[in-house]
């Protein structure tokens, strides 16, 4: 009986939380156009979430590309078709790894900082102070951060894919001796603009999900040191799961 009650409580809690999140997203979207008018705040957040994630994204992209190049080369070599390395790496990066790995890193690097920042604002009564001055904290604090993340994500994913390709090229062509012309021309023949667009759409959706989750968790964090810490952890966990589930659904739609 207690097990049943626990399951019931858990399910109910999940449904309630999903509902609260959906309502918050509606509220966020309603004030987002107004945030565009104060563009300075958005630019600041693009800097915080995007430009400051650049180093980790580029470094990860380079190594992911190099690993793909190495594994792909080893596999394709068995069939005597190393020239297909470019196609394999480009499609893997553009359609899956670029958006997904960028989103996971984004959740870890930018999402956590958004959550803890907003959560700490709540813990130090800054959000309450804004409400006292009739300033809507969702509009002033949450919306620019959400928008900044939404703008930064597709750009980060594109940079990740480009650096990854460069890494694969470095390994395959420079180190392993795949023909450079074959590498690029086979890639160009096999990759469509649609494939690039798939990556852009995916990264936009992931950017939306990660930013919205980060902002939501921060805004609803329990205003204590422990509460903020827990909210930050939840941001990473929820964002990662959301990204992987959404990725499956988007892939099913695109195929």
């Amino acid at each position: 009986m207690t097990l049943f009650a626990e399951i019931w409580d858990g399910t109910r809690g999940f449904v309630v939380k999903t509902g609260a999140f959906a309502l918050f997203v509606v509220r966020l979207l309603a004030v987002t156009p107004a945030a565009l008018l104060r563009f300075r705040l958005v630019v600041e957040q693009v800097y915080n979430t995007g430009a400051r994630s650049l180093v980790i994204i580029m470094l990860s992209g380079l190594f992911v590309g190099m690993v793909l190049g190495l594994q792909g080369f080893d596999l394709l070599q068995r069939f005597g078709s190393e020239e297909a390395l470019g196609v394999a790496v480009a499609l893997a990066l553009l359609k899956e790894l670029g958006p997904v790995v960028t989103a996971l890193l984004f959740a870890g690097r930018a999402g956590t900082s958004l959550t803890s920042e907003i959560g700490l604002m709540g813990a130090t009564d800054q959000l309450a102070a804004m409400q006292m001055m009739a300033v809507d904290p969702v509009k002033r604090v949450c919306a620019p951060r959400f928008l900044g993340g939404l703008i930064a994500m597709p750009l980060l994913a594109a940079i990740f894919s480009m650096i990854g390709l460069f890494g694969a090229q470095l390994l395959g062509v420079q180190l392993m001796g795949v023909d450079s012309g074959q590498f690029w021309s086979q890639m160009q023949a096999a990759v469509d603009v649609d494939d690039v667009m798939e990556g852009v759409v995916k990264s936009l959706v992931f950017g939306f999900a990660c930013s919205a989750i980060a902002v939501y968790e921060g805004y609803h964090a329990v205003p204590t040191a422990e509460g903020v810490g827990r909210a930050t952890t939840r941001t990473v966990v929820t964002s990662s799961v959301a990204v992987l589930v959404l990725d499956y659904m988007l892939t099913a739609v695109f195929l």
Partner: protein
Amino acid sequence: MKQSRAIELGTGLFVLLGFAALFFLVTQISSRGAGFGSSGYLLTAKFDNIGGLKTGAPVSMGGVTIGRVTTIDFDSTDYKAVATLRIAPRFDRTPEDSDAAINTAGLLGGQYVGITPGGSETYLRDGDRIEFTQSAVVLENLISKFLFDKAAEQAPAGNAAPDTQGAQP
């Protein structure tokens, strides 16, 4: 003021780098971006069987890609597949008695439409139809034909074999 300048600079660099990466991916990695878009003229060709031909597949003459397959439709009056080919404007001298065949690039490659030029002095124009076509070779049919031929060859020999063997000892 000094600090906000740095933020603007950083953001600007980041956004520019992002768009440069996107531009690179769209133009350098993919093929459709470098295509001829919606220019060129349209030809149609009717095939009994198009095999695995897909829209976007190349149309080539003498191994050079001169266009792409834009649409594939089915004509239910004569039960044939109709492929619409968009040919780049500068390849405007395709003889009207040319022959279109569906070929396969390599053993595992994709299928494409190969055009073999005819000898006519009049050239195909926008909206014309290529009369002579060859369907895709369906590998299963080819294999089953080969096996049946082999079986037919073996049958008389197989009947004769026990006789000779029986006669030997």
